[in-house]
């Protein structure tokens, strides 16, 4: 533990760790020192002078170094001038006065100065109601200004920094929180100050503007209404909003969020989600979320939502009752016997997946997870468990990232791992191409596509890299699917698991294997025992298929064809998709915003989400639909209470043992304290009052015998001589069903692309931005050429879910 220091703030004795800043020490003792530029997550800069206080220090005898005593107490000497509480560290015996006459005058003066050029347009400002400038002006301001209103500086009021974030230059108080966040935390220094003095203003010169997937966070920590999102600006007043705890469903990080809702005339009197805000969980996302999590929720509310069950009659989907629809599904499932196949995606909650898996077991069917990645069963064996937290990783821990571009696939993990590296963790980034995380790596390993397994198997033998890895106290490996299909990633998972297992890096906190999955709850599906099938087309042919939360028809023409040849297809989803269009029965499911449930993050943390808006039409929760079908088949599955399903799940799935629904809702005190109307301002992120979740145990942690399957090296595909190899990669913004409905992201999503090295392009005779035809393995399509010299020659990167159905590495023709 760090050395403790005791000081007195406003007469209150406070003991805090050495190195704490006075402003933070005061907050820990429940005293709000007003701040603007200071943020506990950022380095101190002392730019705004809001936190002026009187600081006295005990006088020391020069000869002995002892405190000089006066009337039995150490003699305190105050500085003649006020000092900033946000840049001074605590010292033993320090005396701080935050509300003395002198301090109050200083604070008053600062507010008066800050307001000399502020437009004071609170009535039409998005921040009004949750604005520190407003709050501090009322609490500390002089009430009147001696400056001339007409001499205010006028600057542009509606400046798009990109298409996602807008800037009001007049409102900016130049605290540089946004710039520092982008530099220090996001690692994307794409906004900065232009000009100087009163004309100082925020600019972005990147292309696209404000080119960072973390941009929305700046609107949370901006202490005025200068930065707003195009999603929310002029959308509602903060005091009209209700807050509902939720979990982001866009990637395996599982960021804690708050859904702000309101009932509004604009939406026909309905209650709708107005914005997604981060909710503090220092073990998961701290107080941040990425822009995908913030802006991609619109699919839950669009016109394309399914509202009623439907049955195909005379070739057409027609409205049906729940009873008729579930009965029809049940009859067919029962008839199918061994030919019954369930395909479920990680978009579903643990409870949904559990019921689906139970149904498959009872009905003798198969339960597949819809994933482009394999190897998940290994994360149940040697995955990370209880007590694992990127926030506690530092010196002594090795973090290996292999075959994954975390910035694009799991942004908040990128952010957390970057910070762990800054704290001294040994970061090894292994990829076939350059990724943003390389910049923070202690070692980068570059291999050719197809050599993933070899690279991992050789890691421990690799001189200095191997040494540091083997000598670490703890090690985690995050493996992904950059350039890999199901079997390739499964082979990679085995290689990683073996490396961890052989060297004792399992079964303890901050040790083990993590999968960088495509969806939020893939981990849950793996825990439940779902399997992945490489050749889904074959698995569908002639079978009775029950699809939940997946759209294989849109994703892959081959799967569309296979489903045409299926015996019977039941599709359960929140919205109309290409797959519901071909279904024999359509079962409308509730969106995660409309119900409760739990999700298992990639770090194997189970977290609860809560209902925020009323149910759309007649939609039901997935687990309830499955239960209703099961009942018609004479199988009893819990169908009314989520917590009851969770209890049954916890009793039947080993890794969930000991968890209860209530335990997931427990919270612990967290630092920094982010009360939302604080005068010491942490941002508009929400405090966590509804649960920080709990982690699963892994087989290795339970002391069970673990055996790692043989590494299937043959599963990996290498480019052959003179052949162009297409490899699938993941981009944050793609055309997936849960992203595309958010129109504001369309510019970032862009068009179908094929990414080439300039030399490859040259030899193919194609140029940047040229539309080319791409064909591989029976798939033909168009794509725009993008060039980058950060990849190797001889491969073509094809982003997944962008219109070209690529599942695994495959030879390609580009013309």
């Amino acid at each position, binding site marked *: 533990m760090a050395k403790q220091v005791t000081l007195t703030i406003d007469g209150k004795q406070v003991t805090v760790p050495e190195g704490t800043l006075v402003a933070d020490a005061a907050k820990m003792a429940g005293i709000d020192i007003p701040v603007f530029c200071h943020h506990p997550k950022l380095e101190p800069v002392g730019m705004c002078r809001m936190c002026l206080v009187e600081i006295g220090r005990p006088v020391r005898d020069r000869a002995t170094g002892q405190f000089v005593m006066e009337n039995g107490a150490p003699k305190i000497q105050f500085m003649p001038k006020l000092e900033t509480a946000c840049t001074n560290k605590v010292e033993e015996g320090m005396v701080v006065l935050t509300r003395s006459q002198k301090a109050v005058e200083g604070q008053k003066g600062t507010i008066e100065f800050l307001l000399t050029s502020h437009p004071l347009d609170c009535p039409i400002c998005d921040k009004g109601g949750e604005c520190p400038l407003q709050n501090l002006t009322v609490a500390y301001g002089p009430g009147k200004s001696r400056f001339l209103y007409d001499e205010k500086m006028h600057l542009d009021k509606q400046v798009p920094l990109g298409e996602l974030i807008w800037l009001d230059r007049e409102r900016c108080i130049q605290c540089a929180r946004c710039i520092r966040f982008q530099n220090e935390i996001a690692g*994307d*220094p*794409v906004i900065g100050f*232009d000009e100087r003095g009163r004309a100082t203003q925020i600019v972005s010169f*990147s292309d696209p503007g404000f080119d960072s997937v973390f941009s929305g966070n700046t609107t949370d920590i901006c202490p005025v209404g200068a930065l707003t999102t195009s999603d929310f600006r002029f959308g509602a007043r903060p005091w009209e909003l209700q807050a509902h705890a939720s979990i982001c469903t866009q990637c395996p990080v599982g960021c804690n969020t708050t859904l702000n809702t309101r009932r509004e005339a604009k939406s026909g009197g309905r209650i709708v989600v107005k914005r997604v805000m981060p909710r503090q969980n220092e073990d998961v996302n701290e107080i941040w979320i990425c822009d995908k999590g913030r802006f991609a929720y619109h699919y839950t509310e669009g016109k394309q939502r399914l509202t009623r069950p439907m049955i195909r009659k005379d070739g057409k989907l027609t409205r049906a009752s729940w009873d008729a629809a579930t009965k029809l599904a049940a009859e067919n499932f029962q008839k199918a016997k061994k030919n019954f196949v369930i395909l479920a995606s990680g978009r579903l909650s643990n409870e949904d997946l559990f019921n689906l898996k139970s149904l498959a077991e009872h009905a003798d069917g198969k339960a597949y997870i819809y994933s482009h990645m394999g190897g998940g069963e290994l994360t149940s064996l040697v995955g990370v468990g209880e007590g694992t937290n990127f926030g506690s990783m530092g010196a002594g821990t090795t973090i290996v990232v292999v075959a994954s571009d975390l910035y694009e696939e799991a942004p908040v993990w990128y952010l957390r791992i970057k910070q762990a590296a800054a704290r001294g963790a040994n970061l090894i980034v292994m990829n076939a191409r350059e990724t943003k995380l390389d910049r923070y790596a202690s070692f980068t390993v570059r291999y050719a596509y197809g050599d993933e397994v070899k690279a991992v198997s050789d890691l421990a033998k690799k001189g200095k890299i191997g040494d540091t890895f083997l000598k670490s106290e703890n090690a985690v490996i995050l493996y992904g699917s950059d350039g890999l299909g199901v079997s390739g990633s499964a082979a990679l998972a085995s290689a990683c698991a073996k490396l961890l297992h052989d060297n004792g890096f399992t079964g303890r906190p901050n040790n083990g294997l993590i999968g960088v999955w495509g969806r939020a709850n893939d981990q849950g599906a793996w825990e439940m025992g779902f399997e992945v099938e490489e050749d889904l087309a074959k698995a569908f042919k002639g079978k009775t298929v029950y699809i939940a939360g997946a759209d294989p028809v849109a994703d892959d023409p081959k799967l569309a064809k296979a489903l045409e040849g299926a015996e019977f297809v039941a599709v359960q989803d929140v919205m109309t998709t290409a797959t519901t269009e071909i279904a024999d029965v359509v079962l409308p499911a509730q969106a995660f915003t409309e119900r409760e449930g739990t999700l298992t993050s990639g770090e194997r943390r189970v977290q609860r989400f809560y209902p925020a808006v009323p149910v759309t039409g007649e939609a039901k929760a997935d687990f309830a639909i499955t239960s209703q079908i099961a009942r018609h088949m004479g199988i009893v599955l819990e169908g009314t209470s989520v917590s009851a399903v969770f209890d049954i799940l916890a009793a039947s799935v080993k890794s969930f043992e000991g968890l209860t629904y209530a335990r997931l809702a427990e919270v612990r005190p967290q630092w920094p304290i982010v009360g939302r109307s604080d005068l010491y301002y942490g941002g508009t992120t929400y405090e966590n009052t509804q649960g920080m979740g709990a982690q699963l145990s892994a087989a290795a942690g339970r002391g069970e015998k673990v055996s790692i399957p043989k590494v299937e090296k043959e599963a990996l595909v290498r480019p052959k001589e003179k052949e162009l190899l297409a490899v699938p990669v993941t981009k944050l913004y793609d055309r997936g069903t849960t992203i595309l409905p958010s129109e504001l992201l369309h510019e970032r999503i862009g068009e179908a692309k094929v990414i080439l090295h300039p030399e490859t392009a040259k030899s193919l005779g194609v140029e940047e931005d040229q539309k080319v035809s791409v064909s591989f393995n029976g798939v033909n399509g168009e794509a725009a050429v993008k060039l980058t010299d950060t990849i190797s020659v001889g491969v073509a990167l094809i982003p997944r879910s962008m219109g070209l159905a690529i599942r695994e590495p495959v030879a390609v023709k580009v013309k």
Partner: protein
Amino acid sequence: MSLAEKYPKEVKQILAKYPPEHKRSAVMPLLYLAQREEGYITKAAMQDIARMLDISETDVASIVGFYTLYHDKKEGKYRMQVCTDLPCALRGADEFLDNLCANLGIKVGETTPDGVITLEAVMCLAACDKAPVFQTQGPDGIKYHENMTVDKTMELIEALRKSSA
């Protein structure tokens, strides 16, 4: 053409002054180099410098924006930068600038129709005791003009006009 292609020797010289891990420090001299020919720094040049030093374009642009000696727009051949900070204001800088504007028929920040003079108000030029003071920035470098009057300034402008014609 990139800066390194255009002035290979000078770029190399500048970069050699800083240790590779602090190469971003070369941003200021490189900006001067980029400004020399056109009198301002183009967006392409900023991109070029950003790439060369491995920093973001926004970082380069902020530096251009912060210093009054860098320009990101094409303006008059000479920039006349009058200090109007507090000490100079006490010695009549505001009045001086107003009169100058009236004489030239332009506002602060504007350029004379013949494209010779751009008039600007700037912060302290570190010659507070010799106000009214301004500096001219042009192809022949930076020059200080101290204890100025409007008449003396107009004479100077005439001379600059002649030499530019």
